[in-house]
């Protein structure tokens, strides 16, 4: 007991050190405090981190709204205030996903909802920006979509922060804190994308349409589905039909329907479908690397991919996939040089497939998938 007291007080007797007493007392208070309030302290630190992230998100969503509103008001005769109010009212637009407890026909229902959503966006843009041409309207739709994305992330994080504070639930606070780095990466990517969309710069996701556009050069494009064009060209005595979204406005179109229509038009007599798309790289991999595989390379929620796979099965057509690796930031922001330079490599691989895996006289479909913002044909 005396030993413990000595340790606490820095020794007994006249020679005891007052600094040691204070130091030891502080140390013991800290230990006791940590035992009872450790989790509270940790919760407090997590909340502070979330608050800091929320402040950043708030800046991004405010800045995003300003960019969006100014961009839209360039194509409108209405006063800025009127345009601002109309856009502000649209930023919480939502889509309820179809019920999947009865999965039969869920893709048709999802496609229907997505079509309705798209038409609502088109109507809204034509209403607030009547002076915008076709390409500008598509780009404005992208700007509004990106603004909604940043604003939605901000609202969700704010919701969990306030709910966590209200309930003092460690579980609620911890789960948002743990996911925060990834959420911030997505939010930043959408914010940067918003700026790119506003300026009409091609984005990393546009590498598929860029490859298709290069292959299309010199051909006469015809519309094969909504916002999707195709060009027939002779490459090494093969009839190659190149499909891409109609640029240079920002749209992905309905490439699944486009490819399906082309195959149906040829009565299924297609030797191969080659799809080119951007794909998310794994950490540690190099942006702009090109790799090959099989399957429908398309990142839509389902309906477009389903159409291509269905046509492939119906007519027994092999589907090749060539993808260009990139991160989420690369895919949504201005196209990086390494991605733009990968186009030559992709074209070389397409030629290799055409020369080695098809015969002369065959018909081949090449589909460049992605957002064609800033890429014409």
């Amino acid at each position, binding site marked *: 007991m005396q030993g413990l007291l000595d340790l606490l007080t*820095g*020794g007994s007797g006249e*020679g*005891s*050190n007052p*600094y*040691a007493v204070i130091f030891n007392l502080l140390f013991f208070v800290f230990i006791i405090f940590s035992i009872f309030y450790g989790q509270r302290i940790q919760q407090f630190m997590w909340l502070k981190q979330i608050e800091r992230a929320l402040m950043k998100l708030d800046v991004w969503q405010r800045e995003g709204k300003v960019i969006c509103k100014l961009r839209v008001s360039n194509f409108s005769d209405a006063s800025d205030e009127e345009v601002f109010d109309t856009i502000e009212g649209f930023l919480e637009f939502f889509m309820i996903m179809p019920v999947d407890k009865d999965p039969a026909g869920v893709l048709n229902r999802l496609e229907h909802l997505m079509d309705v959503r798209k038409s609502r966006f088109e109507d809204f843009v034509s209403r607030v920006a009547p002076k915008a041409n076709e390409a500008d309207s598509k780009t404005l739709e992208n700007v509004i979509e990106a603004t909604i994305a940043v604003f939605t992330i901000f609202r969700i994080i704010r919701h969990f922060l306030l709910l966590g504070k209200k309930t003092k639930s460690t579980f609620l606070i911890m789960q948002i804190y743990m996911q925060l780095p990834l959420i911030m990466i997505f939010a930043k990517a959408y914010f940067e994308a918003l700026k790119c969309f506003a*300026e*009409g*710069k*091609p984005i990393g996701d546009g590498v598929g349409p*860029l490859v298709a*556009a290069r292959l299309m*050069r010199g051909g006469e494009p015809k519309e094969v589905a909504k916002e999707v064009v195709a060009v027939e060209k002779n490459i090494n005595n093969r009839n190659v039909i190149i499909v891409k979204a109609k*640029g*240079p406005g920002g749209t992905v179109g309905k490439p699944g329907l486009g490819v399906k229509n082309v195959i149906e038009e040829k009565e299924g007599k297609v030797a191969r479908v080659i799809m080119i798309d951007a794909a998310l790289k794994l950490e540690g991999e190099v942006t702009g690397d090109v790799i090959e595989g099989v399957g429908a390379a398309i990142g839509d929620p389902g309906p477009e991919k389903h159409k291509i796979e269905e046509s492939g099965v119906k007519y027994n057509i092999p589907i090749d996939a060539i993808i260009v690796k990139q991160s989420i930031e690369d895919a949504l*922001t*201005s*196209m*990086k*040089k390494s*991605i*733009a*330079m990968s*186009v030559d490599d992709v074209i070389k691989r397409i030629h290799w497939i055409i020369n080695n895996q098809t015969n002369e006289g065959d018909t081949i479909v090449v589909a460049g998938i992605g957002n064609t913002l*800033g*890429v*014409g*044909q």
Partner: protein
Amino acid sequence: MSEEKRPQARVSRVILILIGIGMVVSLYFIVSATAGYFQNPQGSQWQTQLLYGLLILGAIWLFNFWIKGRSKKIEWHTVSQLKCEQEGCEYSEIRDFKEGDYVYKKLGNCPLCGGQDTLYIDLIYAYNPLEVKPQSTETAQSA
């Protein structure tokens, strides 16, 4: 593109070495202070050593904040690469991206071969200004 090491990389390596030395020195002081405390709790030497150790740790912490504060994020710079579609003309120009630019947009006559409406945008891409700037080429040709 040359992969020459950027000066920033060298600076951050020096900073890392300095931080490492600081950590070792502060660790030495803290360990010495702990040992001194158990040998002679009444002595004042361990307090001084502890003070030095904590001061160095604090300095490293502040230095780290300062470094984080001044580290600049990469500002990607977007350029448009122009080319002439006239066969044999190798005109190539890289200029800053202008609003309204898009890939395969026609830009008029070629300044090198004079081809009518043959100048177009071949590529638009973003590069890191800390790396080598893309160069325009106007190689000889005959149209």
